[in-house]
């Protein structure tokens, strides 16, 4: 699973470079997320701009990645495609995650706040 991480003062920005987080890639996604977010700032932003599709296994893996951060840190999402947004909405996971329109907005919001 191809993910890249970029450090900002108050957040780690993790970008998914593949087009799907699905049953075929969910475990690899979760493992890579664990490695990339092990230490670092409180906020982790997951940029999904390249992701067209997330199935329930992928959704479960995103939830698992959030739990791995522990109670002191949080996972936020950015740039959901219409299909991905639909999956989050139908499962009501859109109420669990803070969702940003884009990664730059997510990082920018942080800049203003810091």
């Amino acid at each position, binding site marked *: 699973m191809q993910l890249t991480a970029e450090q900002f003062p108050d957040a780690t920005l993790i970008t998914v470079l593949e087009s*799907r987080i*699905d*049953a*075929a890639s969910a475990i690899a996604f979760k493992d890579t997320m664990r490695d990339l977010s092990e230490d670092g700032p409180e906020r982790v932003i997951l940029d999904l701009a390249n992701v067209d*599709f997330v*199935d*329930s*296994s992928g*959704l*479960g*893996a995103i*939830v*698992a990645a*959030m*739990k791995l951060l522990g*109670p002191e840190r949080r996972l936020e999402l950015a740039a959901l495609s*219409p*299909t991905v947004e*639909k*999956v989050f909405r*139908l*499962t*009501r996971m859109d*109420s*669990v995650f803070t969702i940003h329109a884009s990664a730059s907005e997510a990082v920018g919001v942080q800049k203003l706040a810091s």
Partner: protein
Amino acid sequence: MRLTLASDPFEVRAALQLLRTEMTVLNLSDDAVARVEIIMAEILNNVVEHACRNRPDCRIDIEMARTRADLRIKVVDDGGTMPHGKLPARKTAALSASPETLPEGGFGWSLIRDLAHDLTYARRNGQNQLTFALVLD
């Protein structure tokens, strides 16, 4: 048009891509294409992970037919029977306030039930037969 695939997550990926192409041929809206992809991903993943688990020769058949008002899809697989021989009951999981107790699975059937119409299940000739319709906008 009918599509037959082996029970494997990468076959599921390829099948979903073929279904998208088929839906483009059928001239469906982006939203209908998204709904079918969500439903079919969950149905096929369930077959691969639950019904066909430990059955290496398990095959999955998908048939799609478009009428003016809807798209009718039939999925037949050689896998094991659904628990209690019927569709799982609808669960309305209360979303807990604390993230630590959030579910990491079990979203599959709730997505299928949210999006599919006229969902039916039957066990026939040692196969599971699932049918549903998608209302076209």
